[in-house]
C-alpha cells in the first residue's frame, strides 16, 4: 500500500518536472518510479497514511510561520551593527529512533534559521546542533523537543 503511494508520488514528481499533465506522461513517470522503487526498496514500511494528512497540513502552517519569525530575528541581528548572539554547539537528547525520524528532524532543525544540525552520535542518542542564540540552553532544548520533535514523531509514528 505504502509502496504504491510512493510510486504515485514519484509519478507526480515526474509530471511536475516535465510540466505535462497528460495520461501518457503520467504513465511514463509511473513506470520510471516503479523501476526506481524496485532498485531502492528493501523490507516493508508502514501504512495508516491518510489520517495524518491533517496533522501534516497544520504542522506546515505552524512551521512556515516560525520560519518567517526566526528569519526576521536573524535579519535584525545582521543589519544592526552589534552582534547580540551567543553561538555555540549544544547536544540535544533524541527521542526519535528510526533513520527517517532522525533525518526529518535534523532537516527541519537545519531549515529553521538560527539552528543547524551538525552530527548524530553513533549510538543515535544525541543530535549535535549549532545554535545562534543560546540565552538559556535548557529552554532551547525544551523548545526544540516540544515544538519540533514531538510534532514530527506524531506525524511519522
Amino acid at each position, binding site marked *: 500500500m505504502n509502496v504504491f503511494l510512493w510510486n504515485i508520488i514519484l509519478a507526480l*514528481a515526474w*509530471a*511536475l*518536472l516535465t*510540466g*505535462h*499533465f497528460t495520461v501518457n506522461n503520467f504513465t511514463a513517470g509511473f513506470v520510471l518510479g516503479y523501476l526506481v522503487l524496485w532498485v531502492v526498496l528493501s523490507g516493508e514500511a508502514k501504512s495508516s497514511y491518510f489520517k495524518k494528512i491533517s496533522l501534516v497540513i497544520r504542522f506546515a502552517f505552524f512551521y512556515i510561520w516560525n*520560519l*518567517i519569525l526566526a*528569519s526576521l530575528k*536573524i*535579519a535584525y541581528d*545582521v*543589519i544592526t551593527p552589534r*552582534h547580540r*548572539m*551567543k*553561538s*555555540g*554547539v*549544544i*547536544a540535544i537528547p533524541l527521542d526519535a529512533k528510526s533513520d527517517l525520524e532522525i533525518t526529518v528532524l*535534523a*532537516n*527541519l532543525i*537545519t*531549515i*529553521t*534559521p*538560527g*539552528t*543547524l*544540525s*551538525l*552530527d*548524530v*552520535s*553513533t*549510538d543515535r*542518542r*544525541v543530535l*549535535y546542533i*549549532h545554535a*545562534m542564540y*543560546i540565552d538559556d*540552553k535548557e529552554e532551547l532544548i525544551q523548545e526544540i523537543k516540544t515544538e519540533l520533535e514531538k510534532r514530527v514523531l506524531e506525524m511519522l509514528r
Partner: protein
Amino acid sequence: MIEIIVTILLISGAAFMLLAAIGITRMPDLFTRMQAATKAAALGASFIFCAVAFFFSELGVTTRAAATIIFIFLTAPVAAHMLGRAAYLLGVPKWEGTVTDELRDRYNLEKGTLSSKSIDSIKKIPVYKQP
C-alpha cells in the same frame, strides 16, 4: 492585482537574498555565516519562484515552480549539514563569542565514531590548515 502581488513577492525575495549576502559578509565565523546564508537565500529563492508562478499563472509553470521550491527546501539542509560537519572536523576556527561547544572531544577519528558522552578522543580535532 496580480502585478502588485508579483512585485511585492519579487522585492521581498530579493531583500531576503540581499540579507543572506550581508550576513555572509558580516557574520564572525563559518557556522554563523552558514546560518545566515543558506536559510535566508532559500527563503528568498522560494519567494521569487512564487512570484514566477503568480506571474505566468499556467499549470505547467506553477508545477515547475512548486517542484523547484520543494527541491530547494529538500537539498539546502542536506548540503548545509554536510558542509557544517566537514568544517567542524577540519577544525575551522570559531568566533570568540562562542559560549559552549559540547561536540568538542567527542569524535573518535581513528574509529570514525561519535560518542554521546564526553570521552578523551584518541585524536583531537586538528587546527585548521588549507587542504
